[in-house]
């Protein structure tokens, strides 16, 4: 007879700070899936775990740094990228990954995002986009689609939302992809490619926030959100990035949009040093 035993560990535990569990994320939140894919991606690179550093800003996604068992830095709201830039320049052999929310990266930290992309700084930015400010209780984000309701757009958002892949590619990012947390395999693969990519790589992860975003807009549960992704995602690696903006309940264009080879900031710095 088979005896079913309760497992006390999980294969991913070695890369998680399980001693900090339970984590703070709500049931059906998409961040956990993104973290799970991230761990698989790190393993798939085959790089020594010592060589990784995760830097976060503030927000629900910002808490990722605290749950990953790698060198991890939980910094201030919007400022993970410049911290990561300093760390990367001091330790060019390390893989420095910024893991943060959409508001964190694109709003308060928007200036750092565009200029770090422009410099083709060799870091990876993983942005979990849940279209809302999670941690502070569901306020308007630069990514909130028009008409969506948030606690600070009670009559519906009338601002134009920001399309992150379009912005970063226009600024000079050399790897850009977008997947939802339903695309586990593809998302993992994209994270791995982004980490291995030499230059500024950006992965947007579309994730449900059912507690705030879905509830405010009467979009159902986490499961409803996932089936929405299933029905409305369109994979198009060749998509024109000017056309991948996301609107309220419209289609979500996913794909590995961009991979280009271009000298990084560090490459140019070293080249310049030779001349000096």
């Amino acid at each position, binding site marked *: 007879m088979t005896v079913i035993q309760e497992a006390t560990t999980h294969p991913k535990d070695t890369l998680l*700070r399980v*001693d*900090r569990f339970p984590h703070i994320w709500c049931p059906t939140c998409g961040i956990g899936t993104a973290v799970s894919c991230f761990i698989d991606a790190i393993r798939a690179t085959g790089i020594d775990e*010592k*060589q990784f*550093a995760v*830097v976060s800003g503030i927000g629900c996604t910002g808490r990722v*740094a*605290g749950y990953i*068992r*790698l*060198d*991890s*830095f*939980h*910094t*201030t709201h919007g*400022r993970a*990228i*410049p*911290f*990561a*830039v*300093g*760390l*990367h*320049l*001091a*330790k060019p*052999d*390390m893989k420095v990954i910024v893991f943060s929310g959409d508001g964190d990266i694109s709003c308060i930290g928007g*200036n*750092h995002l565009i*200029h770090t992309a422009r410099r083709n700084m060799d870091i990876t930015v993983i942005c979990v986009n849940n279209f809302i400010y999670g941690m502070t209780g569901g306020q308007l984000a630069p990514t909130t689609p028009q008409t969506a309701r948030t606690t600070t757009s009670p009559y519906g958002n009338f601002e134009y939302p920001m399309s992150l892949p379009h912005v970063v590619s226009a600024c000079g990012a050399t790897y850009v992809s977008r997947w939802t947390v339903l695309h586990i395999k593809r998302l993992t693969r994209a994270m791995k490619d982004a980490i291995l990519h030499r230059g500024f790589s950006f992965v947007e992860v579309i994730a449900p926030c059912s507690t705030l975003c879905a509830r405010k807009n009467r979009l159902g549960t986490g499961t409803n959100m996932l089936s929405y992704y299933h029905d409305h995602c369109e994979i198009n690696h060749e998509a024109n990035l000017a056309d991948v903006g996301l609107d309220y309940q419209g289609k979500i264009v996913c794909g590995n949009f961009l991979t280009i080879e271009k000298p990084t*900031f560090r490459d140019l*710095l070293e080249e*310049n*040093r030779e001349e*000096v």
Partner: protein
Amino acid sequence: MEEKAAVLTGKHFWSGDIAVAEGGIAAGCRFFAGYPITPATEVAERMSERLPALENGVFIQMEDEIASMNALLGASWGGMKAMTSTSGPGFSLMMENLGLGIMLETPCVIANVQRGGPSTGLPTLVGQQDMMQARWGSHGDYEIIALCPNSPQECFDLTIQAFNFSEMYRVPVLLMTDEVVGHMYEKVIVPLEEDIELVTRPRPKPGANGYLPYAIDEESYIPPMGLAGEGFRLHVTGLTHDERGYPAVNAETQGIMVPRLVEKIKRNAPKIYMYEEDRMDDAEVVVLSFGCASRIAKWATFQLRERGRKVGFFRLITAWPFPEPRVRQIAEQVKGIVVVETNLGQMVREVERVVAGRCQVKLAPNAGGRVHETEEVTSLVEEILR
């Protein structure tokens, strides 16, 4: 570029700003992230010339001062000695993340070449109006170290000292210079490399098992710093954290951690205090000053001595922590203290607090944009002596 050596031993004719950059390099700084602002720009310009010629040297002009400050913190956790320079408006932008540096106990140096404010104020003209911002500008309770050079030579020497303090106590250290000192050219003597004493941060023993990044060492209160990439699996957070570095957002941990951050500076304050004194023995009045204002203040005491007045000169080199014990002693010995500073009264509050009525305290105010006239100082001294 004239030289590819890190320490330019010899005699130079440098501005204060250049001397700050050279002091940083001599202290082992190889990472500079900054954003241009008058009158601090020459520090960045010098760094942009010098660092690329040095092994592993990195200069980066960031998108703003907020980014610069955070880049320093990242570089420091990567093991580099890192610095930036700025002036009033940029200093304000750094405040949130100065606090992060304090919370993460990250060594780094910020040089603030002060100009007149508020706001854009006097970009090209002097002020010493950020002294309280240096002490209290970031949110939360903390203690900080701030040094005030009054000559290019001191800009060089004190930048090295700032790095040493910062490494020793794991705290961002502020170099509070000003436009006059930053732009003044004087002789600067750079010693032999082997004569420059350098301190590096306390480090965990290699392979240390069960390393606790924020362990409380009852003796020093300064935990050894493991760096990124060394296999410690550090977690470093701006949230209130326990000895493991894990967030512990509660009154109990706050009650242990914040007092430790404060205590590590307070306990060591006697080793941090630096000041210059002149003719204090028989002084009935003391002129207390720092930075550019101290040059006029000292001249005023010379003039008063020539007139036979018993006046002493006291210069703060360490502004924070404020050399409380010495100022209290002085207050017991004299009739009055005249504080000379290029603002409408900042450090004078600290003097008054410490003096606590033991003697008179008078301020020679100056809204900025100029240095004091000697008479502004002498007249106040005469008033006390009258």
